[in-house]
């Protein structure tokens, strides 16, 4: 059983205790512990269950690569699943639960899967659940969904705050081990602006555990001194708990800073996502030790040799009294030596290499440790924890030579550089035969905006070996990065101690001739339960591409993304395919390096800041008066203003009736307003609109249509000519920005010699539509200016003072009543609104919303962009030839409207539709025609574009596009409804109300 040693633990503050719980059990650790080290210190080896077979699993690693020790952290709204115990800093009150088991971690029903393992090989799901077809939906899928998923999703509401931070530097160094420190120092001393980020809470990486000297001092002292030096440099930014999550185009990188994970409830943001733009990026991301593939290599107590060493040195934790070390390289000897010096037993070092190790082996032998060269593990004994190993000849098939009792196995299959960040943006890899690993290909780095390489690997991430090699490599990388950003490197690398090692020997399967039964228990991917036998099966079944084999077996697809398993897996695949490893290649490395919180990606964009909500100057009144809002673009416009118990429908009807009978007001501030000015403004307006706008007289308004070059309607609105040189274009609410952009695009990219300036003044004005028979009267109460029919005719505008506010008044009508639009500076919008409400009270003034506006315009047969148009409709479809100037040689969309398809007489045309039973047609309903099309669907001859209940007419009214519609007045069409019924509607004129316009002209 694992336990805390009496002494040691360089990261611990042994003087203080921290309380935490695991599955409800109270435990104690120290500041400096990770959750994993604290659990081990409490004898808790079993930390979770695997995904597929629910195998009991303990921690394997000591860092970000951990596949097994995933836990649910926190409670309530702060609960978070799948957190790695190895990267979770312990804090007082931490609450953790294990996952993927029922009813408990110790006794799990799902573990029965492991006995069927030979029936659940790679591709099992694909093969099993395909027949019979109907079973998928009703039997298989519900079952799989029930058993799938790792961890539980947290419940709603995240109480924490997250943020982004944009940062710019010359050189970003990722990784705060000795390589990162030296690279940062070299770059900073050259004068570059440097940012150095480290994913853990500690600087120095694993060098202090491995030991060695720099310039004659212990490496630990050198780390402290270097950090102190960097901290004093004004051009250096240091950040711990900040992981380099991804590298992207043109020097962009994401840093994921866990600001307050270890201090929950503090007022700091929990995570900060650094959006870094760097000139050069140095990836000093270190290396990850590989497991060895032998039977039973997933039993709790089998761990990476480096992790066993880390727990002993950093946290004063022993995994067991007796640790068998099994290795194919010299580095694992350090673990044996470390443990032995701590007074723990090393029953044997099993070195798979026939020729054995070098100097470190000598040192171990001198300590009296038994070393067996050419030997390996046939199988590990034990269930929920290791009880012993059977040893065998690596060259053989696994015949047990001897059984050795032990509680822990420290394994090492060699080291793989962490090349993820190098690879994210296209950096290529080369296979290093001697180290049996992929490392960055210096000839093929990721390339930036100028085609320059912008990532430099450093230290063991570049395949460098001992401290001397790492420091030299890192120094060179730091200087090169600084130089590439224009700085002037100087100085030499510090001298690290050399520790020559005997060559490692690739071992992809232990023993090399392991039979099927052993391979069936030799795990590659712990989290997803992928074994050597699965990858071999995939190869036999034809999955030759590593990307295919990955998806077929799920190798490397777990939350750890195969940090431990990928190289071993593709070596097995290569062997099965009989090809060298580089030919098989790797799967694609994609960001983030380890999972990052979705909230950090959202940053500030949650709750009130989720998206911009645009508000008019009168929004406060609407909110205070019970408006029922609807989104229109980013605006929220009142749909209607229900009173008391009133529903939407009643409110809309009331608003319409009162407007038509007396007086209604509409907040029309959201309408787009664009100024177009210049000597060529008329010419430009004639190109923008289908109408002739250049002939419009100052003081007059004209309704206009805008089409794109495809000929399709894109916007409409009233244009007012302010003076000889100046037009004011009203656009739809949603069109303001895009139409302004459209104008500028043509002016800047096509007609740049035209003298025209535009300005988007949409938000300068609050605009109020005042409609109804009493509209003139109410405005007259508020102004001394003359707005009589003679002074201000229909489609005219003038400047007046209303309620003491300078205003433009436009005599235009969308409701079909006598109506005015008042436009005042936005800062006075609310004052105007209040004045109108007060002055209008004697007429029973009623604010109306967008729905009343829609119904009233439909009663008048006016089109609405987005209802009658959908991006495929031309003005001619809407019988709006009257708005298309025939005198103009050109306008945007003119040529397109001459294309044969546009001029086709069979295009559907706009008509009014009147249901025979008075009901309202369903929105978007199709009119059926005789026969069926090639797909066996009913033929259609038209569709509804707008449909409402008209309180004015007391019946349903609609508009629609119908084949030869205008020539078929009086014909009855059939519209099937969703529930299988049919509604009949007669083709009628689209103007339902006040056909002669007597009201609006009044």
């Amino acid at each position, binding site marked *: 059983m694992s336990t805390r040693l009496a002494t040691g633990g360089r990261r611990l503050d042994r003087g203080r205790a921290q309380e935490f719980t695991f599955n409800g059990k109270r435990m104690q650790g120290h500041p400096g512990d990770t959750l994993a080290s604290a659990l081990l210190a409490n004898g808790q080896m079993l930390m979770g269950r695997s995904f597929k077979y629910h195998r009991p699993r303990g921690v394997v690693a000591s860092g970000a690569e951990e596949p097994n020790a995933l836990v649910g952290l926190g409670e309530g709204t702060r609960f978070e699943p799948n957190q790695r115990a190895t990267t979770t800093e312990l804090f007082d009150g931490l609450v953790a639960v294990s996952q993927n088991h029922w009813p408990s971690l110790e006794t799990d029903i799902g573990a029965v899967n492991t006995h069927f393992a030979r029936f659940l090989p790679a591709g099992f799901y694909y093969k099993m659940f395909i027949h019979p077809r109907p079973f998928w939906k009703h039997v298989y899928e519900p079952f799989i969904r029930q058993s799938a998923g790792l961890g539980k999703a947290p419940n709603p509401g995240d109480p924490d705050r997250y943020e982004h931070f944009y940062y710019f530097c010359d050189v970003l160094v990722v990784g705060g081990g000795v390589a990162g420190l030296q690279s940062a120092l070299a770059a900073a001393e050259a004068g570059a602006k440097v940012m150095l980020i480290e994913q853990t809470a500690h600087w120095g990486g694993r060098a202090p555990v491995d030991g060695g000297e720099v310039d004659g001092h212990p490496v630990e002292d050198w780390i402290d001194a270097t950090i102190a030096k960097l901290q004093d440099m004004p051009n250096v930014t240091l950040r711990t708990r900040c992981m380099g999550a991804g590298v*992207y*185009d*043109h*020097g*962009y990188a994401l840093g994921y800073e866990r600001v307050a994970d270890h201090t929950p409830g503090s007022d700091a943001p929990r995570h900060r996502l650094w959006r870094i*733009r760097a000139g050069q990026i140095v990836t000093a991301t270190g290396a990850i030790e590989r497991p060895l593939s032998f039977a039973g290599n997933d039993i709790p107590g089998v761990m990476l040799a480096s992790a066993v060493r880390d727990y002993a040195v950093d946290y004063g934790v022993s995994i067991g009294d007796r640790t068998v070390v099994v290795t194919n390289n010299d580095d694992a000897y350090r673990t044996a030596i470390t443990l032995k010096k701590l007074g723990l037993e090393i029953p044997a070092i099993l070195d798979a290499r026939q020729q054995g190790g070098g100097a470190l082996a000598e040192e171990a032998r001198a300590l009296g440790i038994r070393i067996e060269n050419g030997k390996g593990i046939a199988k590990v004994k034990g269930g929920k924890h290791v009880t012993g190993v059977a040893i065998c000849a690596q060259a053989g098939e696994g015949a047990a030579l001897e059984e050795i009792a032990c509680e822990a196995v420290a394994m090492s299959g060699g080291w793989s550089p962490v090349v993820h960040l190098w690879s994210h943006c296209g950096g290529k890899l080369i296979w290093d035969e001697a180290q049996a690993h992929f490392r960055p290909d210096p000839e093929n780095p990721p*390339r*930036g*905006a*100028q*085609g320059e390489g912008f990532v430099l690997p450093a230290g063991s991430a570049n395949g460098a070996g001992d401290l001397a090699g790492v420091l030299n490599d890192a120094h060179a990388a730091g200087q090169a990065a600084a130089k590439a950003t224009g700085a002037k490197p100087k100085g030499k690398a510090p001298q690290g101690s050399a520790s020559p090692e005997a060559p490692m020997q690739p071992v992809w399967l232990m023993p090399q001739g392991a039979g099927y039964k052993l391979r069936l228990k030799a795990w590659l991917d712990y989290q997803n339960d992928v074994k050597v036998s699965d990858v071999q099966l995939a190869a036999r079944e034809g999955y030759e591409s590593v990307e295919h084999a990955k998806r077929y077996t799920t190798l490397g697809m777990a939350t750890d993304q195969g940090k431990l398993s990928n190289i071993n897996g593709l070596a097995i695949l290569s062997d099965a395919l009989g090809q060298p490893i580089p030919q098989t290649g790797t799967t694609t490395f994609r960001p983030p390096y380890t999972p990052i919180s979705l909230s950090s990606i959202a940053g500030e964009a949650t709750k009130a800041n989720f998206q911009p909500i645009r508000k008019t100057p009168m929004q406060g009144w609407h909110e205070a008066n019970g408006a029922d809002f609807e989104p229109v673009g980013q605006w929220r416009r009142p749909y209607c203003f229900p009173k008391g118990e009133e529903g939407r429908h009643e409110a809309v009807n009331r608003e319409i009736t009162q407007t038509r009978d007396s007086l209604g007001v509409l907040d029309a501030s959201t309408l787009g307003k664009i100024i177009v000015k210049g000597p060529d403004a008329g010419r430009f307006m004639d190109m923008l609109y289908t109408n002739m706008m250049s002939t419009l007289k100052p003081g007059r308004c004209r309704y206009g249509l805008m089409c794109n*070059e*495809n000929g399709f309607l894109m916007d409409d609105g009233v244009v007012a000519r302010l003076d000889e040189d100046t037009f004011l274009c009203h656009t739809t609410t949603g069109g303001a920005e895009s139409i302004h*952009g459209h104008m*500028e*695009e043509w002016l*800047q*990219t*096509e007609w*740049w010699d035209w003298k025209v300036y535009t300005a988007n003044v949409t938000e300068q004005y609050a605009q109020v539509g005042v409609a109804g028979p009493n509209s003139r009267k109410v405005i007259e109460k508020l102004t001394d200016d003359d707005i009589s029919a003679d002074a201000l005719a229909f489609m005219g505008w003038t400047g007046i003072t209303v309620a003491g506010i300078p205003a433009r008044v436009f005599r235009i009508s969308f409701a079909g009543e006598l109506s005015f639009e008042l436009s005042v500076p936005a800062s006075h919008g609310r004052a105007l609104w209040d004045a109108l409400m007060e002055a209008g009270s004697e007429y029973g003034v009623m604010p109306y919303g967008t729905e009343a506006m829609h119904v009233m315009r439909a009663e008048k047969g006016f089109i609405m962009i987005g209802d009658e148009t959908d991006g495929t409709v031309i003005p001619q479809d809407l019988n709006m030839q009257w708005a298309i100037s025939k005198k103009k*040689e*050109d306008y945007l969309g*003119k*040529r*397109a409207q*001459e*294309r*044969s398809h546009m001029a086709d007489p069979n295009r559907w045309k706009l008509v009014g539709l009147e249901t025979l039973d008075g009901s309202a047609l369903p929105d978007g309903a199709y009119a059926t025609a005789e026969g069926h099309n090639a797909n066996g669907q009913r033929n259609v001859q038209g569709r509804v574009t707008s449909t409402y209940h008209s309180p004015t007419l007391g019946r349903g009214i609609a508009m629609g596009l119908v084949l030869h519609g205008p020539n078929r007045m009086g014909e009855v069409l059939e519209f099937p409804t969703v529930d299988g019924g049919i509604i009949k509607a007669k083709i009628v004129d689209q103007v339902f109300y006040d056909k002669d316009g007597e009201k609006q002209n009044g």
Partner: protein
Amino acid sequence: MLILTCPCCGVTAEETEFHQGGEAHLTRHGPGASEEEFHTYLFAKENPKGVHFERWRHNNGCGKWFHAARDTVTLEVYGTYSAQTLEPPQVIRDAITAKRPGWRWREFA
């Protein structure tokens, strides 16, 4: 995420300040154009693997349109220049041929 330099205001900024606006150097065809000319203008856009010319707008910035010569494979930016021109200026063409010997304007790969 790309970085581009707006030639109108001189800012070098990330892609989120900009809006891509399709192929640059199109010739507008209006009334009187043949079906073929008009079709080509509206629909037949270049889609090269390699050097490409695009229109961009600095919409979260100075609001101006400009042109960019860019590589669609390597994402290298050869240069940005005024939108008020019918063809890429010589300095841009030279910058491209320096990196892609043999490349010629209007010979899309």
